[in-house]
């Protein structure tokens, strides 16, 4: 058995480092967000049987394991030539909606909330004790209930809230009971109201801070996401649509052909690659994914309440894509609402209780691609196998990778706007964190030890001298 040793051990914690490079005039010339974490999943899964991927790859993440679970299952469907029956697809999508609800709700209530309610220059000690929930204690419990609701959908289907066991190549391994369906349905109305409350909180903030929202890390890019045949938002399956910086559709392709359209640029200062649209090349072909990306590519959302919010979102761009980084938060909540509405639709579908859960396999082929919209953006799993079904090649393009360029750009814009002189300030760090957090990156979820994953900012002079360092 081969063993891969990764040193230094601190990599199990991982960390994100931002370096700001000054020019001769002491102004920020360039900023880099370094991702110093390397997980090695693509390499150490080589030689494993393909069907293990639905359980191995969710270990990449403790927050969005369902995305990897489902994407792996879809890649394995392709490998064995099986089409899951409609009931199985519905149950997979239902679990996916559970994940969107838990992940998006957690981000808004627990992660983005302080950014939305507190000034970036607030005293850090005040930021420690004042937050969304302290301003509205009742909302704390509601937020916890909403996140728990999403987790409970996952548990009812897959037996566990984290790292569930449900999808298998060709379908799913368990039906949904009437009791479980009714229990989930019974909470839909309450959960809808909680998300609508959150949208109200967010809109109130945007109204009061429109200048900030329209000027904080605003930049043009392409956008990417899955759509159905009518341009509607799709999170489980569809065609990949790319639009340019003006919102014009430039490509719509079958995810199986992703390599024809997506290239990956490598920089020597980050372990995370930089995907781009091949026909436009690097760096012109950069794009954004995730909630902002998805809502900028779709023409509509197929559920009424979320579609109403989408119309308001689209109006912000005056016919062009919405470019501001802070609008990710609004887009995320619209998708949260969609996930609840879509979960209700699925639960009311008679097929959701069917026990026709496995498709017939036509035979093992050598290559399979899976694609799904994870909460943070488009996710690809691409496997190649030998004649015995052992993996010979694995390629994973994860959402945080698609947004790598965008996060770097956002950090650089914030740094250029707010760093002056040779001293780093807490307010500056708060802004950098807010810019990164809007993309909801997922860098170090599966492994941890005591202590938080640090973020470090270093300021380097034109002569290469370290001028200041701030860590949190």
């Amino acid at each position, binding site marked *: 058995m081969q063993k891969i*040793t990764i040193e230094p*051990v*601190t990599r*199990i*914690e991982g960390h*994100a480092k931002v370096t700001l490079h000054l020019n001769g005039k002491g102004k920020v010339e360039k900023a880099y967000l370094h991702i110093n974490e390397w997980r090695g999943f693509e390499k150490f899964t080589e030689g494993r049987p393909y069907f293990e991927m639905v359980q191995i790859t969710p*270990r990449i993440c*403790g*927050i969005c394991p369902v995305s990897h679970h489902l994407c792996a299952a879809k890649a394995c469907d392709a490998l064995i030539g099986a089409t899951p029956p409609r009931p199985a697809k519905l149950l997979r999508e239902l679990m996916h909606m559970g994940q969107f609800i838990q992940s998006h709700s*957690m981000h808004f*209530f*627990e*992660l983005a909330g*302080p950014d939305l309610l507190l000034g970036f220059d607030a005293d850090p000690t005040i*930021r*420690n*004790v*004042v*937050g969304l*929930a*302290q301003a509205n*204690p009742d909302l*704390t*419990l509601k*937020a*916890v*209930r909403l*996140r*728990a609701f999403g*987790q409970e959908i996952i548990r009812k289907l897959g037996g*566990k*809230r*984290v*790292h569930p066991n449900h999808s298998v190549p060709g379908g799913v391994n368990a039906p949904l009971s009437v009791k479980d369906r009714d229990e989930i349905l019974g909470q839909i109305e309450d959960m809808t109201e909680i998300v609508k409350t959150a949208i109200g909180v967010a809109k109130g903030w945007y109204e009061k801070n429109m200048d900030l929202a329209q000027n904080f890390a605003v930049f043009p890019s392409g956008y990417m996401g899955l759509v159905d045949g009518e341009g509607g938002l799709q999170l489980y399956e569809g065609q990949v649509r790319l639009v340019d910086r003006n919102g014009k559709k430039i490509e719509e392709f079958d995810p199986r052909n992703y390599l024809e359209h997506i290239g990956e640029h490598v920089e020597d200062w980050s372990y995370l690659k930089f995907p781009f649209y091949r026909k436009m090349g690097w760096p012109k072909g950069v794009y954004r994914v995730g909630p902002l990306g998805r809502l900028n590519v779709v023409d509509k959302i197929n559920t009424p309440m979320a579609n109403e919010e989408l119309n308001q979102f689209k109006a912000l761009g005056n016919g062009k894509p919405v470019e501001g980084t802070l609008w990710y938060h609004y887009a995320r909540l619209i998708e949260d609402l969609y996930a609840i509405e879509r979960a209700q639709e699925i639960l009311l579908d008679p097929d959701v209780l069917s026990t026709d859960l496995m498709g017939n396999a036509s035979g093992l082929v050598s290559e399979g691609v899976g694609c799904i919209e994870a909460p943070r953006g488009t996710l690809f799993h691409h496997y190649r196998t030998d004649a015995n079904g052992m993996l010979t090649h694995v390629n994973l393009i994860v959402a945080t990778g698609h947004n790598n360029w965008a996060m770097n750009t956002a950090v650089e814009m914030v740094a250029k706007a707010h760093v002056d002189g040779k001293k780093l300030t807490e307010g500056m760090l708060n802004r*950098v*964190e*807010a810019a*990164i*957090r809007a993309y909801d*990156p*997922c*860098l*170090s*979820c*599966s*492994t*941890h*030890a*005591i*202590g*938080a*994953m640090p*973020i470090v900012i270093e300021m380097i002079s034109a002569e290469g001298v370290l001028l200041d360092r701030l860590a*949190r």
Partner: protein
Amino acid sequence: MDRCVLVIGYGNVYCHDDGVGLHIVNVLRRLKGGKPLQPDEDGLDDLGGGIDAIMVHQLVPELASVVARYDQVIFVDAHLGHIEDEVRVVPLKKAYRFHAVTHHLSPETLLWMAEQIKGTEIKAYLVSVKGDDFDFGLGLTDRCAARADVALERILDLC
């Protein structure tokens, strides 16, 4: 109904010593006549009163509503070599702090959320055990297992 003490082990049980929480949680569960947890079980569905012990992969927000039902909570984690103590026990106070690039909560933040829900203070401790091997695989190193026994005694003193 309020229960006495909740012990929360957390960590990745598939990374050897990072799963020290599971070892301690299972000893506690056996002591109260309960069923030990398998690596993929959390114990959240059989909370019974007295001393409850669960094991989770990460500290996540929905645990706040569970913690809020207790008078005291003890978090059990592994730590790296940069903390010299082989077993460290520290009282915790609530604190609200989130980070840009992680999604799990700190024990202090989870405590803060739980106290928001409960409306009163919850006594809390963090018991951490030094680990030697965080590579992939189940089970503790001998040295970590020995430290876990010490940690267990400290936890029982706190209960």
